[in-house]
């Protein structure tokens, strides 16, 4: 049984999509950095719901744990450490920059929209059926773990080096007197 066969799923998709877009718009327009961050949390939670509706159960869980749980708490910690929460001076750029932003965002959005909406743009290689078969055989974690530790093993090990470098870099940067 597929979750997306119900019209209710479509309705829920629209609810979560509008929460995502609303949260994103709140993020880029709020003056207070903490309000902005909380809107971003709303965006990330709604994205986790959308991932789950798309059948990526593990990615949905990781989105909540890693993004909403770890990365955004790091942001919140930094904002509160630097005591920026009650600095309501607007940091929006002036007139010409707003126009540039709208033109750039509009053209990028338009190009992507046209690319994705063209009939036949997405080649269906029955991935959905293969993922469903994998989930029923290996469950939601195993279906990602198997290619991760088999086909992408080198990339996975390089990821650990990347994280090590990032940790050392962060410690060095924040310890050193500038």
């Amino acid at each position, binding site marked *: 049984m597929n979750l997306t066969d119900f019209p209710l799923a479509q309705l829920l998709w629209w609810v979560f999509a509008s929460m995502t877009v609303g949260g*994103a718009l709140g993020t880029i327009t709020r003056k207070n950095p903490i309000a902005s961050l909380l809107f*971003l949390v709303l965006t990330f939670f709604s994205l986790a719901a959308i991932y789950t509706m798309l059948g990526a159960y593990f990615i949905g869980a990781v989105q909540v744990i890693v993004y909403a749980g770890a990365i955004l708490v*790091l942001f919140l910690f930094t904002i509160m450490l630097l005591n920026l929460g009650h600095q309501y001076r607007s940091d929006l750029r002036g007139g010409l920059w707003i126009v540039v932003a709208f033109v750039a*965002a509009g053209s990028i959005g338009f190009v992507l929209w046209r690319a994705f909406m063209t009939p036949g743009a997405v080649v269906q290689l029955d991935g959905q059926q293969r993922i469903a078969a994998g989930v029923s055989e290996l469950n939601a974690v195993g279906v990602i773990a198997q290619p991760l530790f088999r086909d992408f093993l080198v990339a996975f090990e390089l990821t650990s080096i990347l*994280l090590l470098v990032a940790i050392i870099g962060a410690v060095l*940067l924040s310890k050193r*007197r500038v």
Partner: protein
Amino acid sequence: MQMDIGQLSLVLSAVLFSIGVAGVIFRRNAIILFMCIELMLNAVNLAFVALSRAVGIEGQVFVFFVMTVAAAEAAVGLALVISIFRHAETVDTKNFNLLRW
């Protein structure tokens, strides 16, 4: 109109990405610039997940790598922001003109 939520999610990812671009262009607070970059990374993740319905599980594996890079980027970027804040007492990018001519 009854549309496949996979294709709708691709459109949603385009919308999220352009909102992130707009935010990076018209905000000046360095921390909010990082948030907009996270927003763009999430838009790409959404496109990967939506395409994994057509192509296979590899899209979801790539999301895993993108999340790792995002975590590393956030750690180093926020350390840089703290370092700059200690030096200049502000996170507003209009005050950082050391490398600008």
